[in-house]
């Protein structure tokens, strides 16, 4: 399972990077979304899939899965949501002001130096 997951994680990262490098602003943002999915699964896979019960105390259960990666991912999910929201609004404002979402044109100008 771990090996299969590794391949999937690689695939997710590949797709995310491809989208990040594209010229359309929306695709870049979608790329960041995929990137965080990849990262979350990576943390989970690194922790391993040992254990047979969710990490909640219950009578007679001692074989929990590792709770630490889950705690880390939980934080990461929330943060990535914040980032996505900020990106979206930034894209919206940039498009409003500059009337383009082409990354090539969004590179600023050389006047300031």
């Amino acid at each position, binding site marked *: 399972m771990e090996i299969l997951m*590794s391949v999937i994680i690689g695939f*997710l990262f590949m797709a995310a990077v491809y989208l990040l490098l594209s010229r*359309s602003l929306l695709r870049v943002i*979608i790329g960041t979304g995929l990137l965080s999915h990849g990262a979350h699964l990576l943390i989970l*896979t690194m922790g391993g899939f040992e254990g047979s019960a969710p990490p909640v105390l219950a009578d007679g259960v001692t074989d929990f*899965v590792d709770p*630490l990666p889950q705690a880390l991912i939980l934080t990461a999910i929330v943060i990535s949501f914040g980032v996505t929201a900020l990106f979206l609004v930034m894209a*919206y404002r940039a498009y409003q002001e500059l009337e383009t979402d082409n990354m090539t044109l969004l590179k600023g100008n050389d006047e300031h130096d």
Partner: protein
Amino acid sequence: MISVLLLFAPVIAALFVPFLANRLRGIHTGWFVLAVPVLLFIYYLGFLPQVKDGGVHIGELAWIPSYGITLTSYIDGLSLLFSLLITGIGSLVVLYSIFYLDKEKERLGNFYVYLLMFMTAMLGVVQSDNMIALYGFWELTSISSFLLIGYWYTRDKSRFGALKSMLITVFGGLMMLGGFVLLYIMGGTFSVRELVSMAPELAEHSLFTWALVLLLLGAFTKSAQFPFYIWLPDAMEAPTPVSAYLHSATMVKAGLYLVARFTPIFAASEIWVWLVTSIGVLTLFWGSFFAVKQTDLKGILAFSTVSQLGLIMSLLGAAAAAFHVDGAAETMFKYAGFAAIFHLVNHAAFKGSLFMIAGIVDHETGTRDIRKLGGLMALMPVTFTIALVGSLSMAGLPPFGGFLSKELFLTGMLSLGELDLFAPASWGTVLLVVAWIASVFTFIYSFYFVLRTFTGKHKPDLLPKSAHEAPAGMLVSPAVLGLIVVAIFFVPNFIGDWIVKPAVAAVQPFMYNSPADVDVHVAAWHGHVTPELMMTIGIVIAGLVLYWLLPKWQGLYRAFPEYLTLNKFYDSSMYFAESGMNRLSRSYMDGQIRSYLIYMFSGIVIIVLGSMIAKDAFQVSFEGTAPIGPAEVGLLLVLVASVVTTLVARKRLTAIIALGAAGYVVALLFVTFKAPDLALTQLVIETVSVALYLLAFYHLPKMSRHDEKRKFRVGNALIAAAVGLMMALLAMSSASQKALPSISQYYKDTVYSEAGGGNIVNVILVDYRGFDTLFEIAVLSIAAIGILGLIRLRLTRKGDSGEKQ
């Protein structure tokens, strides 16, 4: 301990200077500042009896004990001599500056803060036994020198000179640090004393020569030796008290101090002997030769300083040569070390007074251009007298101190001719001849300086101000120095016994055990005609003749092509460094996020894959892996399908929905991996995210590829594939080898007893790692404020600006 703290007394005093300068405007700030060097001078005088008998005073204050870095004040003959120079000349310079700098017009607060900062730095350089502390103080002298040269920062030339001196001396300082580190590697200690005690072992080490060369680069840049001297003439933009203090009497002598201090370690090397001596003699000649070309009074003095520093440097080289002579203490080789220190004292006295004279002339006539000056003798008789004393001492004539040290210098150079070491024997003779020629030029520029200014025809119409004698207060300091110059001639052995010999014993421990062993007796007349006296007479005759003929040959200097000078080289390398670096950074910083991402991704891939290959870290093991269930396979297929959809989607709605689908699949994966909290959170977040996307959807542009060319896409795909491959390999390796056990056992064991909760993940978040969660909330709030700001804030309104039309 007290002596260490006193190193910082000037800096602490500097804290009060801005207050005094602002509140007590009626009194010149200099009067308060004057107390600092005077008190320190008296304090250091107290060490004289102890040091004269070969004693040392050591004060220590731990700074970074774990690295063996301490603040030490190590006062032996050499450091005491320098400390007395720094505080003594410092007192006179501060006194002089009170009359030189107008309390109404100048920003005195800045000036005295920088000056006091320098005083601490310089005292630190000469007293630190720890090389790291020495380096720190060393760079602080460069910084305070930079600030003082740039004191009149509105002038272009000041800023140029300040930057030039800083670049050159800091470059040297860094090289010196390299030398120190090498010494540490060799000897295992930062203490100079301890390194000196293990000098014979160090000389055998393979890094010895490297350390030597690096250290000399530091000394040569600081002491303005050829070819690094070019910063010193430009440093003359500083106010004259600064030139007298930093750029003739103290800071530029830090390089000499360094060479003297490390002579016991490096004297064993022939490279040291010949490098120090040859560069010294070359600088001596070069400086004296070009001093005659200058038309600015301070310019002449700057080149003269360069030349005199070269002289002392060459003597230090000759002092090191004595290491290679058997029974050097009995032969003529004993003179060089004494001459070096003796001339150092002499030079500080006469050059300090001459700089102050140049300042007075500038102050009272409004110009330092020697072509406009002349005939000031009648108008400024006192100034002229002091100038004459200083100049004749510089020229090496009796009855002034300079005569004695010039004689000793010639003895030192003569001894080199006898030396049969490493280089062909004739090399010593070449140095002797060059030194003699340089002395002739020294004679010429000394006369040029004093006679062109004070004799000849007075040209009142060329002067911005009508010349008159300086106020008495301004004359005090140069007069005191002038008196010292005369006094040294009459009681040279008093100075020699009390100040010079203890320092010599510190420089040449391989010859002397205590200052009393230094068997040098200075005398103006040896009872018979010595070769040195013959050479001096030759210098006087040749000098007088050439000075007489000066108008006939001074034009020769113009024949020297400007584009070949070191200054030109400095200017053009600065220009190329600036524009070249600018062009270089522009060539890759093109403003495209894509380019930057490509740099980062390639960097990460190269580093991670490279180190995986180098460390043979890649491993795949199917052992102990969890079984693959049908539900998971199904989910993963859906995940792949939705990711592919986002990649190829032509419509933005498709892409957003596919992204949402991927998010939900990840949530379901969390369920299968027994992470209920994650699954719940992911479901909520994904729902909100999709809603957000759809909300923004209305305002966002249609999805367009913006004519991405095939090459562009293939490039992206390659980078993406590399990153994907790297992540896959990384994930496999980390899943296949558990180097360390998980630390979560602790949480599992204590979650109920310590935190009273059952859901381990939740308890970790809100209890064990509560601060993480707090900051996570902070991040979310910042994002929220950012979003609010972006939506509300309208810096440019549509239609308002002309560009938009």
